[in-house]
């Protein structure tokens, strides 16, 4: 690790101000950032901790929308997002207890790891990513592996999830990291079904629109049995070929729908 400065502000404004320094970076749970710093792959001049900002931590629900503060740890979401059980269940399956007690939703969405779980929930829920500057629709937010609509120095302050009628997340674990080798989040709303896939594509989290159409017409596992998933843009690595991941997308979608019943 290289030397860096550390500040722990208590308000979003102070944090935004602190982030104006060159090479300053927000630090939330540190579960991604700290390991890269230990490996000397990342050299921020200053870390601006977000976890001391009370406004950024917590889960609340009103008017059919579940709001999660940007620095809320996964364990808190698992315990307190009871109004959106599929989201709570997803949070409860991230990493191990140590990771869940420190890692946060804002860190996960800002990082946008192609194998992370939260991006699929945000995209399938049509969530809104709230920052210090604006609100960004999930459909506009995810822009490919490790790439998002966030500007330099912009902080995710919260995420608003419209609560669906039914939802389920199927995570198929990569055997080593236990991140999602492929994960499918299915959410059924009054105006249709949304299906978001993580872990599978070279372009990061994506919506499987053919399945959404089929499931919006008929919300049953059979509805997708005739569909095929193209493997062209799928990730191929040590843990699974592109064809294997394409298969998982379909199998897991069917299982998610079945689990919604």
């Amino acid at each position, binding site marked *: 690790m290289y030397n860096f400065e550390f500040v722990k502000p208590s308000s979003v404004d102070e944090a935004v101000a602190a982030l104006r320094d060159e090479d300053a970076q927000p630090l939330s749970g540190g579960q991604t950032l700290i390991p890269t710093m230990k*490996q000397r792959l990342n050299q921020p001049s200053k870390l601006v901790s977000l976890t001391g900002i009370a406004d950024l931590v917590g889960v609340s629900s009103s008017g059919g929308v579940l709001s999660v503060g940007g620095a809320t740890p996964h364990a808190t979401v698992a315990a307190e997002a009871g109004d959106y059980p599929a989201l709570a269940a997803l949070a409860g399956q991230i990493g191990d207890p140590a990771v869940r007690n420190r890692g946060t939703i804002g860190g996960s969405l800002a990082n946008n790891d192609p194998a992370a779980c939260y991006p699929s929930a945000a995209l399938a829920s049509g969530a809104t990513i709230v920052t210090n500057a604006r609100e960004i629709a999930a459909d506009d937010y995810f822009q490919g592996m490790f790439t998002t609509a966030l500007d330099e120095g912009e902080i995710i302050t919260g995420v608003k999830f419209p609560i669906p009628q039914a939802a389920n997340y199927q995570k198929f674990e990569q*055997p*080593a*990291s236990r991140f999602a080798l492929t994960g499918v989040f299915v959410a059924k709303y009054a105006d249709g079904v949304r299906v978001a896939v993580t872990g599978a594509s070279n372009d990061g989290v994506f919506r499987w629109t053919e399945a959404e159409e089929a499931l919006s017409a008929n919300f049953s596992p059979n509805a997708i049995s005739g569909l095929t998933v193209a493997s062209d843009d799928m990730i191929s690595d*040590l*843990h699974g070929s592109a064809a294997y991941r394409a*298969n998982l997308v379909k199998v897991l979608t069917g*299982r998610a729908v079945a689990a919604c019943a």
Partner: protein
Amino acid sequence: MPKDGIGASPKRREDVRFLTGKGRYTDDINLNGQLYVHFLRADVAHATINSIDTSAAEGMPGVAHVFTSKDFEAVGGLPCGWQVTDKHGQPMQEPKHPIIAEGKIRHVGEIVAAVVADTLGNARDAAEAIELDLTELPAVIDMKKAVQDGATKVHDDLTSNLCYDWGFVEENKAAVDEAFEKASHVTTLELVNNRLVANPMEPRVAVGDYAQHDDSSTLYTTSQNPHVIRLLMGAFVLGIPEHKLRVVAPDVGGGFGTKIFHYAEEAFCTFAAKQLRRPVKWTSSRSEAFMSDAHGRDHVSKIQIALDADNNFTALRTETYANMGAYLSTFAPSVPTWLHGTLMAGNYRTPLIYVNVKAVFTNTVPVDAYRGAGRPEATYQLERCVDKCARELGVDPAELRRQNFIKPDQFPYATPVAVEYDTGNYHATLDKALELADVAGFDARAAESKARGKLRGLGISNYIEACGIAPSNLVGQLGARAGLYESATVRVNATGGIVVMTGSHSHGQGHETTFPQVIADMIGIDASQVEIVHGDTANTPMGMGTYGSRSLAVGGSAMFRATEKIINKAKKIAAHLLEASETDIELKDGQFSVSGTDKSVAWGDVTLAAYVPHNYPLDSIEPGLEETAFYDPANFTYPSGTYICEVEVDEGTGKVDVLNFTAADDFGNVVNPMIVEGQVHGGVGQGIGQAMLENCAYDEDGQLLSASYMDYAMPRASDIPMITVDHSCQTPCTHNPLGVKGCGEAGAIGSPPALVNAVLDALNRNGHAVDHIDMPLSPSRVWSAMNS
């Protein structure tokens, strides 16, 4: 009856220390004025080093010195402890194994330079200022390509990348081939024994120290065999005689073979401490461990079994490519040969066997012994091939095995691959495992799985291993450059307590618990009266350490012999005290008595007399009670057993769940059943790791793809089912005094084929005609096999 004698299962006394944070590992050792080394390691697999400019780094804060290969010109390379002779009678090709890369980089992770500084941070900063000028060369990764004509050479001064081409037994080859021509059935299987990284919980650490006042060096290191390191490093690398070199391996957090070998970092720290006159410490990071600990396995094999019309095995032949990596690690050449070829008979009567092994240099981390070492590779080929054979013939895999077993009355049994099994009863362990695993009830369980949409399968494997390593005269003939005896000094104190200084080393095996049980049993005192000292060349007799399931069989036997000497002398003292004839003295429950009388004297009174010799036969025996014995085994020991497991395969994803595992082992006599069961649990856990999860993979440029736990899948608790362990089938070893065979490696040897056989059974029972899947049986591989 002594408390906690042989057969009892006292809890492990060392666990009190470990569980309360009182263990003392090498990284806990910090010496005054200590410096830290950071190794600059190669990030390319193959390159010519044109120049290394360390001048900027030398000037960085806190830097004591930046070492390159130039500093080691007067120092030897790392020695190889075993010379294999090829099928033409020629010695293997043996390249120099430098401490720091000389002129060429040969694998990712090789040490290119070393910065020693006052803090690790300063050393790392300075390492970034080293300027390397490299010319990259094509990497040699695939073994079969490596031995083709014109292949890029890993070592320019060798004739090719072939270390040796070994034929065993070469004289049998023609007869074996002839038997294949006459066979009524031949089963052929090609398979890969996947490369593994041992991943002990404690990474390697070395602390070198030098005392100018008496010109002596001390190395603290994470080793399974401190005396071996002292001999190899002192005599072959640094030129330090034993009396000026002390090697200490304190608590060691797991070895699994990978801490047997003498590594560059150990020699480096010892050497640098003397150069700089300050202690030098290295603690491996996990990332470094992946690219610098010797890897395990990595064989590509073709095996064939010939059968007659009655399904008797008539001949067997194999051809194996064994990856040595870029250099020969300490015992690397012996693993695919003498620890592998000699086990190819397995539990069977196959009369004709020929084993060919081509050991190959590649631009990868050196490969050496890992739990089982050669024996898992032999067992995997054989037990996979027998299973395939049963499927081809449409016969019950258990019965095909039973039919070909060496029969209980055929022991001692000389195999066609040079070893003689002293005892065994393979029918007994097979029957026991079939019963405990409730194989009769399998169909009902399979139907129940099917109702839940899962494919259930059952797999069987037998194994035989050669443990208790090893008879020195025999291994000497086979190319070992060391003896493989073990030693023990038993020191009885004046008030009767005992300290045993053993050359064995415990790094998870529980010697501090089991060794005292043996002495307690022999003398009839409580095990709590006995303490074990190990791990320091300064206070233990020269011994060869712990690996190859040898500690109790060889080290325990040395301790047994030394204790016999103690008892003999104590009887003389007792005879004097009791004014009786020595031949009339009996020792029972810690009391010496004169047979046929009620006259007796307690153990503690005799020991006191030995050290306070007022009433003592000083004219015929010396005072004191301390004896040393060296024990060199007459043969290997041959633990054996049958493993059965059941799995469920998820057809949609290819995911395999291991549902249960049954191990019926014959370890001969068992000293501590709890510890034996724990050893089997651990071995099976690592077998599940190899069969289902672990895969050390390189890309074609020689980059390590699985270089961290993000990509290298270790087994976790949730991957391991409950394991039923039985060791009631006991045919004691006939040639060591304890009748023990060793249990440390069995689980890792016998389990992978059982697991793979179970998955293939699940697929084939359910309409997927799949002959073979290479380990690890990851979901993606299993799914691909079902869908190709």
